[in-house]
């Protein structure tokens, strides 16, 4: 289960605030995954006191709303990434960035498909730059794209370009902290990110030993 509580002193009308919160949740918490299990309790509650004395925000279109939305996205993404970083048994955070899709939603769906793949997660745990698993997870996301447009980078190492696998230096060194997977699926403007963690023996141990 993930729980979140967000607070701000910005002055914003409740109806606008509810729209902004949902947009931020879709760009953050709804883009993380550890084990593919959606909990019965996942909840984010967000409260705005209005005590900063800022201009009252009564439309999601105004510049103040865009500024507050950016702050809300940033805080929720920071918290969401720390949840993924702390995934049970995790040794690193996986950040998947997808560009070139037709829309933000489609890019986000591909990114989350890759971050959710047990085979990609296990490959990251084994420090195996397995571009095939990344390509396959992008391919089964349910978003159409031409496989010859597929480009896959692991960190700053190009593994696949125009759908063709490339030679790479396996000894490019251990990646600690965050493993960045960058995927391009075409020349659309859609950009999306998802975060997950590697799949280790400890995940099974933690959850197999645990009993209700």
């Amino acid at each position, binding site marked *: *289960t*993930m*729980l*979140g*509580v*967000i*607070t701000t*002193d910005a002055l914003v*009308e*409740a109806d606008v*605030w*509810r729209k902004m*919160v949902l947009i931020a*949740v879709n760009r953050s*918490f*709804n883009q*993380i*995954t*550890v*084990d*593919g*299990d*959606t*909990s*019965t*309790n*996942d*909840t984010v*509650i967000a*409260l705005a*006191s*209005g*005590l*900063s004395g*800022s*201009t009252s925000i009564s439309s999601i279109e105004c510049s*103040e709303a865009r*500024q*507050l939305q*950016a*702050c*809300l996205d*940033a*805080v*929720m*993404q*920071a*918290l969401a*990434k*720390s*949840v*993924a*970083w*702390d*995934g*049970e048994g995790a040794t690193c955070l996986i950040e998947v960035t997808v560009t070139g899709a037709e829309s933000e939603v489609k890019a986000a769906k591909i990114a989350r498909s890759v971050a*959710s793949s047990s085979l990609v997660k296990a490959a990251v745990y084994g420090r195996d730059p397995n571009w095939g698993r990344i390509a396959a997870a992008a391919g089964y996301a349910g978003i159409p794209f031409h496989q010859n447009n597929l480009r896959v980078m692991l960190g700053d190492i190009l593994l696949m370009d125009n759908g063709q696998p490339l030679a790479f230096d396996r000894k490019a060194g251990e990646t600690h902290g965050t493993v960045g997977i960058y995927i391009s699926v075409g020349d659309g403007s859609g950009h999306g990110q998802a975060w997950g963690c590697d799949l280790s023996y400890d995940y099974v141990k*933690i*959850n197999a030993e645990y009993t*209700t």
Partner: protein
Amino acid sequence: VASSMDETANYIPAAPIFIPEGPWNQIPGGVTAAKGFKAAGIYGGLRAQGNKPDLALVTCDVDAAAAGAFTTNMVAAAPVLYCKNALDISKTARAVLINAGQANAATGDAGYQDVLECADALAKVLNLKQEEVLIESTGVIGHRIKKEALLNALPELVNSLTSSLEGAGSAAVAITTTDLVSKSVAIESQVGDMSVRVGGMAKGSGMIHPNMA
């Protein structure tokens, strides 16, 4: 029963925070960084084992615009059903009560009654309407919450409320379950010509694939 708050931050370290680049500065704290908010986290005797804090409260001094996003899992926990109803009734809220240890999920009508009683008890202590109190629970699915222990800890919890960094830190620890780190962040930025703060806390380590709406 309840532990003092300055010990709570020692239970688990804080997570490294990766904030995206943008026109903001990270500032210390979490849910209490923004004006008007207080928080507390204490040990109320709800966890199955150990004495890590397990009860958190976040309050606002004024009626706060309230929003929520909830799991779309068809088997929704009692606090999820309760909050959705409360937010339908009221556009504002004043308090969020969070317990760790039992999820109050798959607990049927008895579990829903438990969440109503906890909300009502806190509303009375804070002199609020019940629907101004929102509730989050996390922990073992299928077990009802240890309601007596929770109700008995409310006075100590309310007395521990503070707008300090410790308040935010202790609340962030108290909501954790299998987490190895607590998760808390705050930023300051310009909205229009005014400086605004946005802060938050989160928990989560297992059973993580949120699909909230």
